[in-house]
């Protein structure tokens, strides 16, 4: 019997813990050509800002060992375009939409979140705290517990009570638990770990940075151990807070690793550029990995790595 991938968190009821990570699924249409978006857990949209954004100049991408350095600059249609075109399309395909919200000020986050919450059909909101804070000379909100908490409070205060709010944190901090605690105290229903790591590639031909914007965010399997460690650390400190784990998930086994570390859901990001049907494949592989270990329900193994050694092996008799 295949393992049950149903994932229930508070009001949320998802058919699978596998999601698409923010900014990696286009509008959903591009992905739908290769994957049934209704059958994956949910689509986390690219970050929606109030106004349309042209993004950063090209080149925006550079390949790195098992990773990708990117600096897209949140190109997108803005809130109006998203609500008129993209969200209705996702819902018409039966997808569950986790809408990622962005802003430059606490107020902008609140405004975007409030209008998204007013439009029917949104399943959850993810707060992209990686945006530069206009009030702090462009320092990302996620680097400062107080700034991150203020944004989460503004978003939580402007969305309907039954729409869960997830705060997406950056690994680029000394103490990720402090930021996590601040977000939870400000009303976050869950956390999303992790955003990209800062990185740079220099072109040996031009003697210049490979990206037009010099530095970018590193993602892909190269950062997976960092992400797993962040999920583990936060789960250890805040065992009751649901976590969306992301960072280089490529196979069902990778997803299993995040679940064991304490993530209740797993988002697939950069790997979608490599394999646009990755979500369906990972979902199938996860099912097989769980069945092979005699696990009936995916929820049974969330955070299992925090239990003492030997417990799992005794219970299930594998290894």
């Amino acid at each position, binding site marked *: 019997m295949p393992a049950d991938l149903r994932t229930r968190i508070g009001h949320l009821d998802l058919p699978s813990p596998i999601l698409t990570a923010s*900014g990696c699924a286009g509008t959903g249409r591009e992905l739908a050509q290769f994957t049934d978006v209704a059958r994956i857990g949910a689509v986390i949209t690219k970050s929606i800002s109030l*106004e349309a954004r*042209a993004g950063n*100049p090209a080149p925006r*991408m550079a*390949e790195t060992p098992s990773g990708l350095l990117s600096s*897209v600059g949140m190109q997108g249609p803005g809130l109006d*375009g998203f609500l008129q075109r993209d969200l209705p399309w996702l819902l018409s395909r039966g997808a569950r939409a986790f809408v990622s919200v962005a802003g430059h000020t606490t107020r902008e986050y609140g405004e975007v979140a409030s209008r998204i919450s007013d439009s029917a059909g949104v399943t959850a909101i993810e707060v992209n705290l990686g945006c530069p804070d206009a009030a702090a000379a462009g320092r990302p909100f996620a680097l400062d517990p107080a700034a991150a908490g203020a944004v989460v409070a503004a978003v939580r205060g402007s969305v309907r009570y039954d729409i869960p709010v997830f705060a997406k944190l950056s690994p680029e901090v000394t103490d990720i638990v402090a930021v996590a605690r601040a977000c939870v105290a400000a009303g976050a229903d869950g956390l999303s770990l992790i955003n990209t790591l800062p990185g740079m590639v220099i072109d040996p031909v031009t003697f210049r940075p490979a990206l037009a914007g010099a530095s970018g965010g590193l993602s892909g399997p190269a950062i997976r151990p960092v992400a797993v460690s962040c999920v583990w650390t936060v789960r250890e400190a805040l065992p009751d807070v649901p976590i969306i784990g992301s960072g280089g998930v490529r196979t069902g086994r990778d997803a299993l690793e995040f679940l064991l570390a304490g993530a209740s859901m797993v988002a697939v990001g950069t*790997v979608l*550029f490599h394999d646009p049907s990755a979500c369906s494949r990972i979902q199938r592989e996860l099912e097989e990995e769980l069945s092979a270990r005699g696990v009936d329900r995916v929820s049974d193994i969330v955070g299992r790595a925090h239990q003492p050694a030997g417990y799992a092996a005794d219970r299930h008799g594998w290894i």
Partner: protein
Amino acid sequence: MANSDRDGGVGGVAPVQVRGTVLTVRRVDAYVAMTVVAPAIATRFRPGQFIAIAVGGPQSGMLARRTFSVHDVRPDHGGTVEFVFPPREPGAQWLAECRARDVLDVVGPLGRPFPVPRDPASCLLLGVGPGAAPLFALASRLTERGANPDFLLGAESADRVFGALTARRIGRSAVITTTDGSLGARGSVVDMLPTAVQQARTDVIYASAPLSVLRSVCALAGRYGIPVQALVSEPAMTCGTGLCMGCVLPAVGNDGITRMVRACVDGPVFRGDQVRWDDVGTIPFDALGAPGWKPRPGPAAAAAGASAASGQPGSGGATTADGRASDGRSPEGRSNAG
């Protein structure tokens, strides 16, 4: 509404992801020509479209797909796809080392194909280096319609000119240029363009070349009032499917608004006068959503915002309030030829 979305691409046929078996790998001068059995891609293909291949095997550390314009498709083995590339960077080298019966993960056909004129027209096909490859499928299509095209091919040296012999065989005329003069005329295709255009009485130019050449070609063609359909190969694509937003360039829509469009889904074939060649690699200050950009007041602004997601040049009216698709994307409507 859904039909006007990009699910089906321009041809109304969605790309597929298949496991294709390598049939042949051979050296052609400085390039490698590879044929892969992929019936689902071959039957959907239209000239100008490309494929995206995963390189390095299942556990590859190279995450970006390599994209290649399709040289030609053939009906043997149910349908094969041929493409040509210089084996320079590590991903292409890995691919060049594949052998017959190896299996590749291939996505395609992708992108907007070359629009083909409704009536016979005098077409000049201009290609530089491996960029010439996609022009030959187009040439067959044009010949079927009774319009033998003229060729203008160029490269740095003789071994980098792709398809010179075929061009001479199937073209009404064929001009070859090389920078070092080792084949044909010494110089660049841009130098020979005025003569070629005048001799052939060209109605439309199809060009596939590096950005700098496309810019010069479009500037010259603009002076003669000849429309250009330009196939761009830069900025490099990472996914090929429109997901990553990496391959953007600024293009003006029919509504006069500049948008950052993706070469992979809105191109790779663009109308030459719609790409802002001088601004590639920048965000023009008047591009939709550029820092400080403000929507113009009135209904036009709402339409601009709504179509920003698609970013399709020429889709200014593509998604009107009632969701009706305009013919802005119909191939015949865009070439102005014939």
